[in-house]
């Protein structure tokens, strides 16, 4: 028991425990709300997990992974920005532009899949990077806060798609593009079959590979060293001969590229076409994913998985138990809140550890 106590009072362990405790607390609050509104929380959570395929339904689990895919990438985009001192609130717009570009390549050129698909993905990445580059330049050249410029860029992206889709790549209706041909799709027959017909796509592997790559860049390369130095202390980075302005632009571009890739996985892996007039909320969800994942690549992957499970399972939960799916959003918000309130949880942990100590002391006396 006192091993546990010692474990709990160590600051590093506490930091690692916090996300998990936050999740538990989030579900607890969700349970309380359900009890108040007259639902059975255990049944609901069980159905939630069942809906996400955690009881062995491969197709459903595939859908969980599908939902996790773009979130991993937008989460990485935000986290990467944060690590380098930038708050990229424009992942949504970058993602939209990435997806738009991928769809455009998918529809407007005709190539065999081995070329067509990689081309579409690369163009998506480039488009996202471009959409991130402008705020980067505005920041480094004119000192314009990236929060303002990326919010503006989000809306510019929406209206750009709004114009170009009906004009150049209209599907059956004015409000959406045609569906992309199979040659530009991230889906593969064998992958779908592997997961019993789920819509899982190759984007998942791209997302996981990106996470690995970002981890490697940040931790193992001189480039990552420079980016982080700029994020922590611009003046010192400049002193060390690092080109700060160039790094700000590059960092926004990489962040945008990740969001652009998210767009590719979403629009040519998942929806197959693009609809006008909407900003994907996944970019904003990426903020939550990044923050819950402590802005580390592994953390982002895990928290995106959590989001994926929650989102994939909530419809099933609602159909089975009647619990409105907004509850899942509430739970996620509570989890994020506790993840922010680290000090509160640490206080509780310390309190717990101290009580343990007292008990032991009392025991020793007796």
């Amino acid at each position: 028991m006192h091993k546990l106590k010692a474990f709990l009072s160590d600051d590093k362990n506490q930091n690692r425990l916090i996300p998990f405790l936050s999740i538990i607390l989030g579900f607890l609050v969700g349970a309380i709300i359900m009890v108040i509104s007259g639902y059975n929380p255990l049944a609901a959570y069980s159905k939630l997990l069942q809906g996400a395929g955690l009881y062995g339904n491969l197709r459903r689990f595939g859908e969980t992974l599908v939902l996790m895919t773009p979130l991993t990438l937008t989460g990485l985009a935000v986290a990467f920005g944060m690590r380098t001192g930038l708050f990229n609130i424009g992942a949504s717009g970058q993602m939209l532009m990435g997806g738009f570009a991928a769809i455009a390549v998918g529809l407007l050129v005709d190539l065999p899949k081995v070329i067509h698909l990689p081309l579409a993905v690369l163009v998506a990445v480039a488009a996202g990077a471009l959409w991130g580059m402008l705020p980067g330049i505005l920041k480094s050249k004119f000192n314009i806060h990236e929060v303002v410029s990326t919010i503006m860029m989000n809306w510019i992206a929406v209206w750009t798609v709004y114009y170009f889709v009906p004009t150049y790549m209209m599907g059956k209706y004015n409000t959406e593009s045609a569906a992309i041909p199979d040659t530009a799709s991230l889906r593969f027959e064998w992958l779908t079959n592997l997961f019993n017909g789920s819509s899982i796509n190759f984007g998942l592997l791209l997302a996981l590979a990106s996470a690995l790559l970002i981890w490697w860049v940040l931790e193992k390369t001189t480039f990552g060293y420079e980016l982080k130095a700029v994020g922590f202390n611009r003046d010192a980075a400049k002193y060390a001969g690092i080109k700060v302005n160039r790094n700000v632009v590059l960092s926004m571009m990489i962040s945008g590229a990740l969001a652009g890739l998210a767009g590719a996985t979403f629009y040519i892996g998942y929806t197959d076409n693009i609809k006008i007039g909407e900003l994907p909320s996944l970019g904003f969800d990426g903020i939550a994913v990044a923050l819950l994942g402590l802005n580390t690549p592994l953390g982002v992957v895990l928290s995106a998985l959590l989001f994926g499970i929650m989102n994939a399972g909530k419809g099933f939960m609602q159909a089975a138990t009647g619990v409105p799916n907004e509850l899942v959003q509430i739970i996620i918000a509570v989890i994020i809140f506790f993840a922010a309130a680290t000090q509160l949880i640490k206080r509780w942990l310390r309190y717990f550890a101290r009580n343990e100590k007292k008990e032991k002391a009392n025991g020793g006396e007796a």
Partner: protein
Amino acid sequence: MEYTIEMLGIRKEFPGIVANDNVTLQVKSGEIHALLGENGAGKSTLMSILFGMYQPEAGSIKVNGKEVTISNPNVANELGIGMVHQHFKLVEVFTVTENIILGMEPTKGIVLDKQIAAKRIQELSDQYGLMVDPDALIQDISVGMQQRVEILKMLYRNADILIFDEPTAVLTPQEIEELMHIMERLKAEGKSIILITHKLKEIKAVADRCTILRKGKYIATVDVAPTPEHEMARLMVGREVNFKVEKGPAHPGAVVLEVEGLEVSDNRKLKAVKGLNLEVKAGEIFGIAGIDGNGQAELVEAITGLRPINAGKVMLGGNDITHMSIRNKTEKGIGYIPEDRHKFGLVLDYTLAENLVLQNYYLPPFSKNGILNHDEIEKYAERLIDEFDVRSGQGPSTPARSMSGGNQQKAIIAREVDRSPALLIASQPTRGLDVGAIEYIHKRLIAERDKGKAVLLISFELDEILNVSDRIGVIYEGQIVNVSDADKTNENELGLLMAGSKKGGEANA
């Protein structure tokens, strides 16, 4: 004799360290009481406790004989205790008046009455000869004036017990002298003063008694007048300290740094360096003496590349480096110990090891093809830590933020010196450090010189300039107005030149 302040048996722990261990401090009313100790000895901690910012784990505090609990700075203020912190606590975008009245604002109805406040401040300023402009913005005034604002804050609150935590570390010699006068005037008005400083000369000049701490423990309290400087230093460090900088004659070689007609602007786009000429030779230490704000910072930043050059030429070892990037200049052989170590010198959120490779992380063996070699970096860090005696809790993986100022400075020096650049620029390298550390740093600079490197030393402290340099240039209003050999000049002459009294055509650099 009645004590105004008594701190008895004070103990304060921080994670992993006992900052104050059974410390006693007794201050008589109307005296200037110095507090002496190495970096990290626990002086600031003790004062923070007295000012109510920390709570001690053990011990008691008496003010004018009455036991008190100082739970926060408000309580301290009410007890008549005021503090000038080591790092100024000023709001940069506020005016002097706003900073002083903050927390005790006079109002007319509900409207702030700044006129009344400004008048009162002007009066106080005149009374103590502080010379501040109540309407100036803090960000626009000199460090010396900022400090006088801090003093006014205390006076405005009628404090009787004034704590100065290293007030002189950031001041020019003239400002220090003024401050000493001010302190004496305050003492004459019946105020008690606690003065923290690493400079024994200052203690000798103004203090009545001195309490010495070492590694968190109380060592002694001595009367200053009969105690010689080296004795105080010995008590503080625990061994004999050598004050005289030991150095042999210089053997100057070829010109390494040559600056010609340099013009540079400051942050407000005003000309700060105006056609400056300068030459530094291999194997010599060239000291630049001058009062803060005469273009020193801009000169150094221009040479290192941190600031754009408007006109003129900078040559290094015969190559024109005027418009080279910072990185290129560094590679061509410039090392730089910056004045502001937290702003430029360190990435505080990086580990010590990461900071030690800040200038060469991209070179082998620390990286190859853009990939870092953490093992090599760690090995290198261990060597430097060992060689330069950088002390820290967790070795190479200590976060730089958690290191003491002295050790942070040592880390920077280790990094810059170990690269053995042809030109080493040291800007205020010993500011805020204790005598032991200063001694060490001076030794390293001289060792570089003896290796045949050029060293450019910028300092506001004439002692340091005179002791360490081989040649001395005086900077005044953006120009080097005089150059002389260190052994052929003296404090008086330099002081006059620095004040601009003897500007002449002798700029023969």
